[in-house]
């Protein structure tokens, strides 16, 4: 596919109409270009530091198709390595997670410590003197950095700093992380699922409020059946915001309870004092307005290209790999304050599962929506997907599609000009 054709993938007209060519979800050549210009280029989420709290804790996972070791070394530093032995290239870590002092490749016995140094080389005298063991450590991605516990990597050594890349998203990460008095952690258990659909369908769905009422009506019916009051009028209007660099957020109020500090009658009454105490504590620490947003409002954030931090019925951290144009691999984690009571933790997990995950009352219908789109993209004659909702408004509502346009504009810029990530020219919008 030529660059010329790329420029035709999106129609972003002065009349406000915004359309995406449906081949962006199916075209194999475009998929290859997307790997090069987006996934091998941007800052990509690896994991949360609290997943490996102690020296020697490690997790092996797939990040943008790469086999990665996420490990805390003996000095307590979080490290990210390609899971590849420097000898014949076998995986040096073949367990999903655990605790270790070293990674030994089973094939010929080359051994690395948790800082990646080659510390064991069987029959080492047989190697030429010119071989430098210091050069044969485990390889890290060109860039690794973290923000508030969220660890990212980039395969692009020239990319701007993570701090600059995250742009306006940092303030929203803060709004989530600051809810925890003693810091956040990832609850044990991963929800690993997939969909026979293009990854971008999930990226935009994750910030799409428009679909909630029709697609997730059974979830809202369930909430009504357990006594949730839908008659509330809300203090803050729902809104969508461009956070720069393709990151976007929708912030809104909703009738559900939030285990951090928004009481709901369907929560066990014995939990009310703890929830109220947390709310008052956050109000004292952050002031009424910020505490109101932290405790009472919900937000779905998309960090370009493939990380969601959705803070509504609970906090879900979600990322997705794209092995092919028509499949994605999704992982959900639950982020939660360290040291919350067992009751609150159980309540949080219960609230999470009602909506979220492959067995929830909402996520499966999202999977159905992605696959329904992907099946119907076979109809190439129907060329354009429409993303125009709210485009002529001064301030977009959460139920508009500004947040999708933010994603698509960045996707479109990078697929044509990946070098934009080398400078702060990447930041293209005013930050709120």
């Amino acid at each position, binding site marked *: 596919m030529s660059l010329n054709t790329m420029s035709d993938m999106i129609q972003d007209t002065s009349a406000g109409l915004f359309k995406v060519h449906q081949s962006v979800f199916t075209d194999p050549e475009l998929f290859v270009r997307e790997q090069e210009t987006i996934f091998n280029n941007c800052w990509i989420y690896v994991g949360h530091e609290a997943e490996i709290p102690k020296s020697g804790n490690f997790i092996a996972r797939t990040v943008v198709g790469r086999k990665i070791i996420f490990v805390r070394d003996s000095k307590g530093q979080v490290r990210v390595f390609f899971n590849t032995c420097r000898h014949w290239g076998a995986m040096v870590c073949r367990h*999903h*997670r655990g605790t270790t002092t070293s990674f030994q490749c089973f094939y010929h016995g080359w051994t690395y410590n948790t800082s990646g140094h080659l510390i064991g080389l069987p029959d080492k005298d047989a190697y030429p003197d010119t071989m430098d063991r210091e050069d044969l450590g485990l390889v890290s991605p060109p860039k690794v950095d973290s923000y508030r516990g969220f660890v990212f990597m980039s395969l692009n050594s020239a990319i701007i700093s993570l701090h600059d890349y995250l742009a306006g998203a940092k303030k929203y990460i803060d709004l989530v992380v600051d809810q925890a008095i003693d810091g956040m952690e990832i*609850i*044990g*258990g*991963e*929800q*690993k*699922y*997939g*969909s*026979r659909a293009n990854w971008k369908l999930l990226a935009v769905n994750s910030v799409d409020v428009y679909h909630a009422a029709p*697609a997730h*009506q*059974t979830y809202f*019916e*369930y909430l009504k*059946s*357990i006594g949730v009051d839908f008659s509330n009028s809300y203090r803050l209007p729902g809104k969508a915001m461009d956070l720069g660099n393709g990151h976007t957020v929708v912030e809104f109020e909703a009738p559900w309870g939030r285990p951090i500090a928004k009481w709901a009658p369907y929560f066990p009454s014995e939990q009310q004092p703890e929830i109220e105490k947390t709310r008052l504590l956050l109000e004292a620490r952050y002031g009424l307005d910020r505490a109101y947003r932290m405790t009472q409002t919900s937000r779905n954030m998309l960090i370009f290209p493939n990380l969601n931090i959705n803070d509504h019925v609970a906090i879900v951290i979600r990322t997705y790999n794209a092995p092919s144009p028509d*499949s994605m*691999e999704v992982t*959900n*984690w*639950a982020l939660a304050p360290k040291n919350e009571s*067992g009751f609150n*933790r*159980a309540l949080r*997990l*219960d609230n*999470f*599962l*009602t909506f979220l*995950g*492959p*067995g929830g*009352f909402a*996520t*499966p*219908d999202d*999977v*159905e*929506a992605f*696959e329904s789109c992907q*099946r119907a993209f076979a109809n190439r004659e129907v060329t354009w997907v429409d993303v125009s909702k709210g485009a002529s408004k001064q301030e977009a509502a959460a139920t508009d599609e500004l947040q999708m346009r933010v994603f698509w504009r960045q996707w479109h810029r990078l697929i044509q000009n990946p070098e934009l990530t080398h400078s702060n020219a990447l930041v293209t919008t005013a930050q709120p």
Partner: protein
Amino acid sequence: MTVPAHVTRQNIEDFLYFEAALLDEWRLEEWFNLLTEDAIYEIPPTDDSRYTGDAQTTLYLIADNIVRIRGRIDRLRSGKAFVEDPHSRTRRNISNVRILEDSGSSLRIQANFIVYRTRYEVLDVFVGQLEYGLVVAGNSFRIRTRRVVLDQEALRPQGSISFLL
């Protein structure tokens, strides 16, 4: 409560086959009537915590109490659970049934399962172990706990657990 003198594996198999038929035939109200009033239905995550963490401290795939089981059935029957509209065709195979404990009034049962599901001309397979806590009720049983432990390491390509697994 009448406690049968001896619960045999065949008694249990008959019950599990009957339950499987109700689910395959989408007779969800009849299935709900097999549950005790405090029943739970759980599917732990597919990672290494599947045998070690409980639903109060670990992120499960499904951890329903009786209220949410009721809600799940209402949702599935509403025609608005779009992932199951149209419904999946399912075929359950239950085998390797073992009675792990039998107190006379309650039993702990383990069985293997394979569920084949087709939808939109695509076949998906779910494989794993069923763990039941049953209570004796008259000449039959009621389900107090129903735990489905998947062998799949991820729900790929299945995507979701949209029906009662």
